[in-house]
């Protein structure tokens, strides 16, 4: 087991290294001045430019630049945002926790709802419930996440006025509230964006879980469990589901890229001050340093997600621990 974890950890490190190299190449292969992208030269003050050059050694040969780049990264030095006039690291530090909060909420919703629906569908296969739920998951799964966000915003925000239409907090009252009130305020604002991000993934999980569970239910050991006189519910949950859980865990880990991509779209729609919105604004403003930094963070998060998923799978399915 430990050997397996060590191998997967090594792999995660390699992935992160690959991300670093790739972002470096991206920066240097793009047209225009490195680290500047196609941002208008005239809009950036000469002092800032000079600082950039010194920091990243832009007048040195390429390999030296890479070493500088990697070293800077290790120190947490990500350059300066030309648009926001602040160190990129600071911008990231403020935005990342918000995105993690949103992502966690969405993931919880996706896994919880997805699993429940998938299990229900499998238990009631070919019934009306199964067909209806199947249709719903198909529609959600085929929907662009940004469109769903706009739709929810239209219906629940503007149409019914149930939920706030933007931001993470209500600026008028947030600072005046006690801690619990503040938490609730954030929670209220969290509902729509988390639902948007989470529902599409929930549909994906439900579809997958349904077919995994159906396959598991058809397995010989499930029939053997029934032959021993075990109650149906136990057979379903303790035997069929346990075995079908492993691939779902893998899927959860692999869904990190989708959550990241989705956050770019969703945060901008709902004005959620997270990394996604930072990236979105940076893309439009051609704030290249920020774009690169967010790509890096995304790569790290994906690698971590894969690692956690691999470990979780090894815990759930003992056969995996023997691989290779």
């Amino acid at each position, binding site marked *: 087991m430990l050997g397996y974890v060590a191998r997967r950890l090594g792999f995660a490190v390699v992935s992160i290294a690959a991300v670093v190299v790739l972002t470096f190449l991206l920066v240097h292969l793009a047209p225009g001045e490195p680290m500047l992208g196609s941002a208008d030269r005239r809009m950036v003050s000469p002092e800032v430019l000079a600082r950039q050059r010194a920091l990243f050694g832009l007048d040195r040969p390429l390999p030296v630049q890479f070493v500088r780049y990697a070293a800077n990264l290790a120190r947490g030095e990500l350059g300066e945002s030309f648009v926001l006039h602040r160190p990129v690291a600071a911008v990231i530090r403020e935005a990342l926790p918000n995105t993690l909060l949103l992502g966690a909420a969405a993931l919880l919703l996706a896994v919880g709802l997805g699993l429940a629906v998938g299990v229900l569908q499998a238990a009631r296969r070919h019934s009306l419930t199964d067909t209806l739920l199947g249709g719903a998951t198909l529609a959600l799964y085929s*929907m662009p996440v940004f*469109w769903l966000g*706009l739709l929810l915003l239209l219906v629940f925000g503007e149409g019914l006025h149930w939920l706030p239409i933007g931001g993470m907090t209500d600026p008028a009252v947030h600072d005046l509230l006690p801690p619990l009130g503040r938490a609730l305020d954030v929670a209220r604002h969290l509902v729509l964006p988390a639902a948007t991000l989470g529902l599409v993934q929930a549909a994906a999980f439900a579809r997958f879980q349904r077919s995994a569970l*159906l396959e598991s239910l058809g397995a010989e050991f499930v029939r053997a469990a029934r032959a021993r006189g075990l109650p149906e519910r136990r057979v379903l949950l303790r035997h069929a589901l346990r075995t079908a859980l492993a691939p779902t865990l893998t899927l959860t880990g692999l869904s990190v890229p989708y959550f990241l991509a989705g956050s770019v*779209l969703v945060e901008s729609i709902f004005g959620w001050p997270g990394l996604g919105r930072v990236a979105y604004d940076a*893309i439009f403003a051609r704030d290249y340093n920020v774009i690169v930094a967010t*790509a890096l963070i995304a790569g790290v998060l994906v690698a971590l997600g894969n690692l956690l998923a691999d470990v979780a799978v090894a815990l759930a399915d003992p056969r995996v621990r023997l691989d290779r």
Partner: protein
Amino acid sequence: MSPWRVAGRRFVRNRAAVAGAALVALLVLVAAVGPLCTGDPLAQPDPVRLQDRPPSGAHWLGTDPYSRDVLSRTVSAARVSLGIGVGAALLAVTLGTAVGLAAGVAGRRTDQLLMRGVDVAMALPRIFFLLAVFAVWEQAPPVAVALLIALTGWFQTSRIVRAEVLSLREADFVAAARALGVPEGRIARRHLLPHLAGPIIVSASLDVGNIILLEAGLSYLGLGIRPPTPTWGNMIMDGKDVLFSAPWVALAPGLALILTVVAFNLAGDGLRDALDPKARA
């Protein structure tokens, strides 16, 4: 009866799959012929008075903030979305098959190397690199968009193909061909490739939906294919600013997207169930 006939029979018996396939055919028809029937998607006949008009007799789906007819734009956008979706899927599948086949028939060293590369590539966030590239490349033509999407999305196919090739390599009929002196390359082409057709087709058809959504996301962000050329994604981008006052601008392209992706997903699922020997319940 050949396995193709059997699969065909199974597909036809699956009502959802047939509905999906029919819908895809309809969409292709609309994309091909539709723009000839509707108006000019770029026309702005009356920039002031026709701005954000709700659906009416003259404009079945209303007009957008730039006074253009939403219906004709939606129909025109079908060409782009379907073209990129299908094109990129085909490209990705070709690439994936080539690499998977190579890895499958190659010696252990090459195989391991290739697959490690694929593993690492799969671990990288595709979206962000596409975002970064298209943020810089402002006037990317549709072909480039399709190409780049394909270049970042062939990994899963290569793994599937490799797995299939590995299991087929040891099959008796392959050993027989080898024993008769048939060269490796010929074996790969004439004996292995036909068996790969099934998984490849399924992989490709299920990919199309995802690619269409991916391209829509990119154009929603103002990247890739930009206005005034309509894509469903950038139409939604135009519509989000007037979401409360003129919801049809964003709703129409969104519904078109859902319909298209649902169609490809249904057809893709149907193909998978038809070609998979273990028919899923």
